[in-house]
């Protein structure tokens, strides 16, 4: 059973989002997602200053099995990226909710965060997926 941190919000594409005190949002992928992907060998992050719309393919995680796009779940400007992932992509596997964060975004409209799932809702969502 994968770990679900109750400190975050979640998207249906298995990204986690954390609203920070300065109004920016940090994003990564959930433990469930990293486990499904398998061991990562490359992570391509966006560039600081990139303006992203919701649904834009903004990062790529490439594992021993396959490559997957990460779609930006909300609009905003990239404020910071996790440079450590260039040399140590396995941080996403080993620490998906902390050291394996992918990028930080200054959102255009933080109220859209209300549309995402909390830990309980995400847990139910995963259970539903498993039943299918």
């Amino acid at each position, binding site marked *: 059973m994968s770990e679900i941190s109750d400190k975050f919000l979640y998207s249906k594409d298995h990204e986690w989002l954390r609203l920070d005190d300065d109004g920016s949002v940090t994003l990564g992928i959930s433990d469930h997602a990293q486990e499904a992907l398998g061991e990562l060998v*490359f992570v391509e992050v966006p560039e600081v200053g990139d303006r992203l719309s919701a649904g834009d393919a903004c990062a790529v995680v*490439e594992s*021993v099995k396959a490559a997957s796009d990460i779609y930006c779940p909300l609009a905003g400007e990239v404020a910071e990226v996790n440079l450590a992932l260039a040399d140590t992509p396995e941080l996403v596997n080993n620490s998906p909710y902390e050291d394996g964060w992918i990028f930080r975004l200054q959102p255009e409209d933080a109220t859209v965060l209300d549309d995402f799932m909390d830990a309980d809702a995400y847990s139910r969502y995963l259970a539903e997926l498993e039943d299918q």
Partner: protein
Amino acid sequence: MHYTCRLFLLLDTLLGIFDMGKQTGLYKRHVEAGAKLVDFGGWDMPLHYGSQIEEHHVVRNNAGMFDVSHMTVVDVSGPDSRAWLRYLLANDVARLKLEGKGLYSCMLNPAGGVIDDLIIYWQGDMKYRVVVNAATREADLKWMHKMVGDRQVALKERDDLGMIAVQGPQARQITAPLLPGNVGKAALELGAFESLEQDGVFIARTGYTGEDGWEILVDAQTADTLWAALTRAGVQPCGLGARDTLRLEAGLNLYGQDMTTSTSPLESNLSWTIAWEPADRDFVGRSVLEQQRQAGVSRQFVGLVLEGRGVMRTGQRVNTAAGEGQIVSGGFSPTMQCSIALARIPAGAAERCEVEIRSVFRPARIVRPPFVRNGEIKIQQGSKNNSNVPGGDLL
């Protein structure tokens, strides 16, 4: 109503059982060791036991073990065995002059396509042991029985045996004392592709990783005991994930991916496995191969090393100066810390090409496999940005 529900539950359970793949005698060991299991040719096999990349490095640097009991073992005997095998296989069992010696060969169809690749060992007199793939079991057995016809050849499938491959530079030294009787001492004398059978143990100095090691065939109970002893001796269980990256680095073909019934060994880097001499030996597929050899094949089988980031995957398009080709096996090389692949591209293409990875053409170098053998990188690597990666000191 209650009864209906129960019936459905029961049906569900039964279907669940039928849904499950076949299990090797070591299945419980895999579950105990926390393996992630996947379906492979109808078998529930370990993909990895936590980290396939660590398992890969363990085999390159120390010793790892693989449960390969799913592979198909067939014993061939009878007075016509030798003559029949010389007709059945593209390589020539007459080359086996030393008892116990093994030979890698393709089994071809009349059109020169590859039905399977295999290793055959000569066990003295008219006795041979053949190890073929798991996913091709039914097609192989059907073909072999058909080819026997009215010859005096007996085929006996040995599904009573378990098979453990222990691979890596330390594999033989660690394993030898754990084998029954004096088998270990005798086995340490085996040269490459040599086997012996003693005290109920068949052991061969072969493998599918590019490292030294043994493949050991024993009854299911002994396999279980040996697996447990190897585990206690610190040998890392390894899954199919590491097995695939190890064989890819070693430039060893994977049946079903790198060669199939519709590809010739001449366009699969397997010309060396065809015994053209003696010229009067007829074998299945020979006439077609002779024609191909004279006309020359239009495609070549090469290795690719990706420059920069990204991972080449099976099926991706390759652009060369001589035309278009395709990746047949691609992946990430844990030893080289970059992506490598086996590809079929037009004859004549050399040095450089571009691989279409997710709609972007990325430069790659055309090389001759193997990429890695006996822990050493055999391909000169460019000055890529690979300084801070684990294992970077190897470069």
